[in-house]
């Protein structure tokens, strides 16, 4: 059965890494629902947050194929209950709508959104939340004329206690491991 997974992938800054990762998903016919890239808490390490829908068997396979990439440090796969996540959306609405009563204002307050900018022609509303909450706000604003709507991909923080740094340390130790005896066979 297909379900939603959030992949948190930590990588070195190597040109082409995005291509390599998307190739793995493309080959398995997995659509990317959302994709976000940013620097992580560890300097020089980048975090890609990828949301996909697939089966739990398939996600394990693609995660291993991603981790196999030379420049990828670590891949974590999470279900929604294992992460704290948000998306951000911006809405551009005509100022007329705001001026014609306090409906817009009420909608903004009710959704814990905020008004970023007001100009004579338009206002910009910002909403941070889950995808469903953002969709809900969009539905409510639509009757008043949404000029533009843009939404980011998911950003996620994991609930797990072990942080990337301790994984990096473990990997470093493993990397320095050399077999005790290397016997040459002729």
């Amino acid at each position, binding site marked *: 059965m297909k379900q939603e997974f959030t992949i948190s992938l930590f990588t070195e800054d190597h040109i082409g890494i995005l291509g390599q990762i998307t190739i793995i998903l493309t080959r398995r016919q997995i659509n990317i629902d959302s994709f976000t890239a940013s620097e992580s808490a560890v300097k020089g390490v980048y975090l890609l947050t990828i949301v996909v829908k697939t089966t739990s068997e398939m996600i394990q396979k693609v995660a291993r194929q991603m981790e196999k990439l030379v420049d990828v440090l670590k891949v974590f796969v999470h279900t929604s209950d294992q992460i704290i996540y948000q998306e951000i959306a911006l809405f551009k609405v005509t100022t007329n709508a705001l001026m014609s009563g306090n409906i817009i204002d009420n909608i903004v307050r009710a959704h814990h959104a905020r008004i970023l900018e007001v100009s004579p022609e338009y206002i910009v509303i910002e909403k941070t939340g889950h995808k469903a909450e953002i969709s809900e706000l969009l539905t409510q604003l639509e009757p008043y004329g949404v000029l533009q709507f843009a939404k980011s991909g998911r950003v996620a923080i994991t609930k797990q206690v072990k942080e990337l740094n301790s994984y990096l340390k473990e990997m470093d130790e493993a*990397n320095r491991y050399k077999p005790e005896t290397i016997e040459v*066979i002729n």
Partner: protein
Amino acid sequence: MKTEKKIKQTTVQVNGQEHITGAEALLQCLIEEGVDTIFGYPGGAIMPVYDALLNYEGKLRHILTRHEQGAAHAAQAYSMTTDKPGICFATSGPGATNLVTGIANAFLDSVPVVFITAQVTSGLIGTDAFQETDIIGVSMPVTKWNCQVKKPQDIPDTIAKAFYIAKSGRPGPVLIDITKDAQLEKLHFKYKKCDYIRSYNPLIPLHIKAIESAAIMINHAERPLILAGHGVLLSRAEKELKTFAEKTGIPVASTLLGLSAFPSDHRLFTGMLGMHGNYGPNLLTNEADLIIAVGMRFDDRVTGNLKKYAKKATIIHIEIDEAEINKNVQVDVEINNDAKEVLKYLIPLVKENSFEQWIREFRICDKTEYEKVIKPETKPEKGEIRMGEVVRLVSELTKGDAIIVTDVGQNQMFAARYYKFTQPNSLVTSGGMGTMGFGLPAAVGAKIGSPDKPVIAFLGDGGFQMTIQELGTILHYNIPVKIIILNNSFLGMVRQWQDMFFKKRYASTELINPDFVMIANGFSIPAKRVSKREELKDSLIEMLAAKGPYLLDITVEKEGNVFPMVEPGSSVSEVRLTY
């Protein structure tokens, strides 16, 4: 004029940490890595490297093939027979794209090859310049790692990294694309071999617990079977595999690329797995209660229908590439380590045992297969010459001591089935990719890598013509390879499938061939055509005795089929002996 002057400067010999050009730095890096042979083809963008090569005569030998694809296959075969990575040069654009089949072939068969391609001057990248191709983008899905170098000072570290990645862990091809300006400009040369990359862990500490539980399972198994793959050869674990099998008494079956990892004449050897593998190991995979898979990846050609594969068996998978574990077959014990290390640790934990009754079942299968398939194929008394009989004769005449190179198709399956391999790394074949045209250039690479061994190429008349121009390379360097064309004037394997699955509708599989003897002679290669059984053995003896290269065009049974066969979609236990 300007370029000329620049190139002249590059040819000045400099030592140690002096300023040298990027092109010279590249060659210096190769020497630091112990390289002495390069396969390649020059062109515009890579000219500075070729110019610098003249300064390295005696240190670096360059083999000019007749097509870049040939260079790629030759470099792979060189690596497969020497334990050294293969090196392959090509220019930008078409030179680079012509490599792609060869790169993909090396990738699927886990062979370390360092591909160096030239790129147009960095300022021109992205402008669709003459002979510009985004080879980084093109080769991304078929390389273990690739990287473009635009600055000369980045060359040493990138090359060092490339060698480390290609050779370590599960080996594979890497590609370094170097811009022309980076080849021409100068740098302070300093080389340090790479043995550490933060994000890349090729040597994983042994999973002791998994190995210990595997040992318990092995000690309690009643019908265990070892499946040996290419990983045994790649980790040089042939001795350990032999010790392990002999101590436990467990029968061994091999994948196509695992052939020669375990002696074909060993009492515990049961044959090849897979679509055209032997009857016993296919049939009895589904009777085994324990499967110990060593350095293999459960390819679909090996497993047949996965839903009906080894359902009675507990599966232990010893595999260095974690992504291969649970990819096709769900396993019970995963040991994500190097095969040699695991076997070394495992041997003292397993008890001495024997499985005579279980092995007898294989021998009964062998007898059936011999009577129904092997005997009529390898020792026919009438009718046309058969491919199997040619391979059997060559095997007997060379006492299993030659390096066998094959093309792809029926010739490959007959060579794999009927040659008795006694030495590790003595089969060079295109497994995962099944690349027709692989054989001839691979024979060139194998012979250059192992000049002291007889190298015999079994080719079909179809595949031979895909890379026939490499006869030019054989002529040029007088490479003493023995070429056997198993000529049925058909694309035999495709014709067999048409015969079996497409109601004998032979669409585009019959070939009108040229006179291969005349062609060989045109390349100054002695050649002979054989079509009579009485002449076959003597002709093979004559070929083997020849000092230089030799081509034997053997007319074989036109519509011979390879059996046994696990039909696509069938279970391994449904392996068929006849049509």
